[in-house]
């Protein structure tokens, strides 16, 4: 009798847990987060940038510190299909790839591009990757969240 009750309770518990599990595992596939054009943003006095079109606001201080510079005139931001943010600026040696999370951007990758810094970088959205071009040097690089391709 006791054993039967345990079995019944186990079955009920399994069904409830199964139903709950089904509820949380709802996933929408093939989301395209890609931003068709890069955003060119001018930092304010506090080194915060605000992209009104794509609705994101953040401080660039950590990135500047990482690059070892105090300020930039503008930064360039683009989001790829997978939803990663790519950030760089004139004078940067790297492209920073961030993964968005709850109120944070977590560094996913730091892609080294040019030792002496980019001249005039620009991101272009391409089907499978992000194209980074340096308008001054004429160099172009194909990148994604994992690095250079």
């Amino acid at each position: 009798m006791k054993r039967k009750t345990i079995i019944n309770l186990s079955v009920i518990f399994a069904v409830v847990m199964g139903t709950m599990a089904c509820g949380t595992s709802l996933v929408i596939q093939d989301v395209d987060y890609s931003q068709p054009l890069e955003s060119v943003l001018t930092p304010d006095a506090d080194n915060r940038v605000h992209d009104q079109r794509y609705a994101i606001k953040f401080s660039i201080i950590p990135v500047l510190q990482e690059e070892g510079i105090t300020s930039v005139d503008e930064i360039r931001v683009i989001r790829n299909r997978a939803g990663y943010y790519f950030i760089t600026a004139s004078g940067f040696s790297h492209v920073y790839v961030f993964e968005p999370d709850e109120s944070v951007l977590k560094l996913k990758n730091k892609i080294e591009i040019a030792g002496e810094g980019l001249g005039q970088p620009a991101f272009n959205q391409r089907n499978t990757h992000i194209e980074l071009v340096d308008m001054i040097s004429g160099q172009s690089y194909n990148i994604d969240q994992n690095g250079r391709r």
Partner: protein
Amino acid sequence: MKTLFKKHISILTVFLIFACSSAYAQQSDYQIQQDFRAELSELLNRVELAVTAEELEEVSSEIDALQSEYSEHSEIINNALYPESFESTISSLREIRSTAYNNLSVIEQLNEQIDGLSAEMDEFRNRLTQMTQQTTSLQQQIERAEANERRQASLIRQYRQNIEQRDSFVSDFMQELLSKYHRMDASTQQEIAESVDRLDQNPLDMIRTIITEYIQIADQSPGLQTPDYVAMRAQHGYFMEVWNQIGERLTNTFAPDRPVQTRQEISDLLAAWLASVDNKLWDSMTTAFNQNGINLQPFITPDDFYTALNTFVDRAYEISLQSNNEADYEVFRNFRDFWNNTVKASWGEALITGNILTQAQIAAIDIKISDWGEAAQPTSNLMFILLLISIAVIILLVVLLIVRKK
């Protein structure tokens, strides 16, 4: 050598293609849309600042060039301009240009119209000034030539011709105003009204000048006679007729701030002109009738004049009915001749145009004159005398026959 040259050319071509494609590869999508926006903005700016239709025609071809230059990047631009698009932006630009072009065309037409009007006014003013100078000079010469009758008569003839020329010139001007403004649509009228400040002299100014000068001529003219004053009244009548047709439009167009007051001012001037003409006209007409032995009762208006004529003819007719003697017939002949040869032949048309007599009133007087003529015809006694003689002869012959038989 030739093969080597061809080889060089091929290498150069390949290099150029590579260079071009590599240059294209280095383009920034962001920069492309920024460039597009900049060029678009520049064209919009040029449309706004354009002052001639030619400038906007140039812009039209540049819009075509912009469209063809950026059509390959339309997708990028669509993304950048969302919710607008490349095509809708170009169409909107074309529409703005087209509207500006139409507005500018209207303004250019209006400018031409105003310039034309201004030139017309200048020309008219100059011609009128010239005529006024001639008139003044002739007036002075007439006054100076009082001692020489023949010379004075010749000068008066010239003076009269000068006034006739002025009348004809002014009539043409009024006719032109009539044809130009009588059927002018409200929008054109409004457009001219907005630009009227640019005119040194507008048609209303000219009309004021013309009337003022006519008043001076009527007041000061030496040596003029009834036909001249009748012609002046006819000119006034024509002027009134044209003014009644276009006065309101002219004042609304050329005095948009105070059309009613301006209309009243010109109406007052027209009344003053008529008073000046009438002042001389009735005197000279009375004199003309008196000089021909016709004493009409006093008249100072067209109605008075018509009454005076009727009274004269009616009374003469009554007298003729009572005693149709030769003297009465002479009175009739004298009036008939003056009426037909002077009043109708020389003044007739002007009397009608000047609103002194109507065609119907002239015809009514004609009928009365005809009746008067029949009544005034003196009756002859010759037939009666011949009858008496005939009877006497017959009686005499009968008496002779009776005496012979006995």
